[in-house]
């Protein structure tokens, strides 16, 4: 049975090798400061007490006032799992976090997906491009303030213009 690390234990263990990197912890989650993500992940992957060699899932959530990047880690040798989180882009400005692709190649497409749909930059990603949508797509659809293309048209054009558009038929 894969045992999840409890948040507080993991936070202490992380503090032991990377002091000052943990923001807080609750339940099974540990919030790490965004700029120390690389150090923490490198340690979690390579240190013998963790050996988190498999990045299960990488995603992001839009909490209106900030974004949260969520890492689900699995350790095959230890058969353990852990959840790391990082709060980025407070105030919705310039959300960015260091890329973990140098540590886990499995993050490659997942980080591109998060950038594409949520708009969080991953500094140091080798191929930082959109993945699902095409280059030049307006906005990032999974953000809570995203307005769809159709909606933006109807919102931005005044009523008489809309009628004019519709009148062409």
């Amino acid at each position, binding site marked *: *049975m*894969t045992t999840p690390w409890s948040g507080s234990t993991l936070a202490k263990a992380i503090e032991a090798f990377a002091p000052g990197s943990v923001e807080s912890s609750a*339940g099974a989650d540990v919030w790490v400061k965004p700029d120390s993500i690389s150090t923490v992940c490198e340690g979690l992957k390579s240190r013998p007490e963790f050996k988190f*060699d*498999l*990045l*299960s*899932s990488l*995603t992001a*959530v*839009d909490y209106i006032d900030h974004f949260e990047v*969520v890492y*689900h880690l699995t350790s*095959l040798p230890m*058969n353990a*799992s852990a*959840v790391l989180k990082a709060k980025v882009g407070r105030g919705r400005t310039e959300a960015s976090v260091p890329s973990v692709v140098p540590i*886990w*190649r*499995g*993050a*490659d*497409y*997942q980080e591109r*997906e998060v950038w594409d*749909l949520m708009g969080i930059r991953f500094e140091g990603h080798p191929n930082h491009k959109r*993945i*699902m*949508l*095409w280059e030049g797509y307006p906005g990032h*659809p*999974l953000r809570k303030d995203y307005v769809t293309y159709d909606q933006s048209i109807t919102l931005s054009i005044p009523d008489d213009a809309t009628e004019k558009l519709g009148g062409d038929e």
Partner: protein
Amino acid sequence: MAVKTQPVTVNLGPQHPSTHGVFRMRVMFDGEEIVDVEPVFGYLHRGSEKLAEERTYTQIVTLTDRMDYVSSMLNNQAYILAVEKLAGIEPSPRGVWLRMIAGELQRIASHLVATGFLLQDLGALGTPLIYSMRERENILDLFEMLCGARITNSYLRPGGVFMDAPGEFWPALDRGLDDIVRSIDDLETYLSGNEIVFSRTKGTAVLPQELLINASITGPMLRASGVDWDLRHRAPYDYYDRISFERKLHTASDNYARYWVRVQEARESVNIIRQCIDQIEPGPVRPSFDDVPRLIRPPSGDAYAAIEGSKGELGFYLVSDGGIAPYRMHVRSSSLINLTLLRDMLIGGQFGDLFVTFGSVDLNMGEVDR
């Protein structure tokens, strides 16, 4: 004598007979050798994750059907497990057994499809594909008995399944399992010893274990390299801890190993279903509406649940804000992540092996793009 050549860039897809959906690759060839590959995604992107944000927890089951449309039961299972974890629902035992049976049947169907299409990509003119699709049809018939639909099942509900299996399902299941074993035997006689299949798939697109794990690749691809990692065994969900089964491992980690592991896993799934039939107990198939109402309002928080899907670790990450719809749903799609090493597998290989390797990853565009 060195012949001076110039590489040529060819666009393969999005509409191509072998891309398993709509997928595009910009491939640079030097003669028959692949110099560079750039995969292009997103032709089937339907925004499932966004759509889920305005649907209730039960309605999202129908969305999960359409992600990996050759293993929708397993998608349902992964999603329902995440909902149960999020809302703290205690599932009904009979419902759990039924969804395990359905899930394993779906795994057989999915592996049969993967095998059939791999052989189709190898250039067998449809024969093995149609043999495996024929057996899949029997499984789909069983699904129709269970839930009235063949592909887009929507069979599972939070806490179990929506309806008990009908009386004629059990004898049909017994017959079907015997048929499946027989047909897998046939398929193996036909293909596993076939010299052409051997020479085409042996030693092509070999990936080392460390690289596979580093690239988060799970499922049959990982087990084909000899890593004994199966979530049904390592992190048992549902009642998999009450079931003993063998994890089939291959060590070569080439295209043949991936094919072989899938065929053997399909066999093992038959074994699991037989154990489920022995252990299934009577009772309600889902909790009463007093325990689990139609409109679930899970407490604020998040939950990640993963199952061993037919293509690898299939996980759902749900965030709730206490409302009737998830605040955020993320799908950890094994198909997308298993493609991470596509370039490593293809570059330096032959054009003839391109789609074989691609097919041996066993991906489904509905799940890659969601």
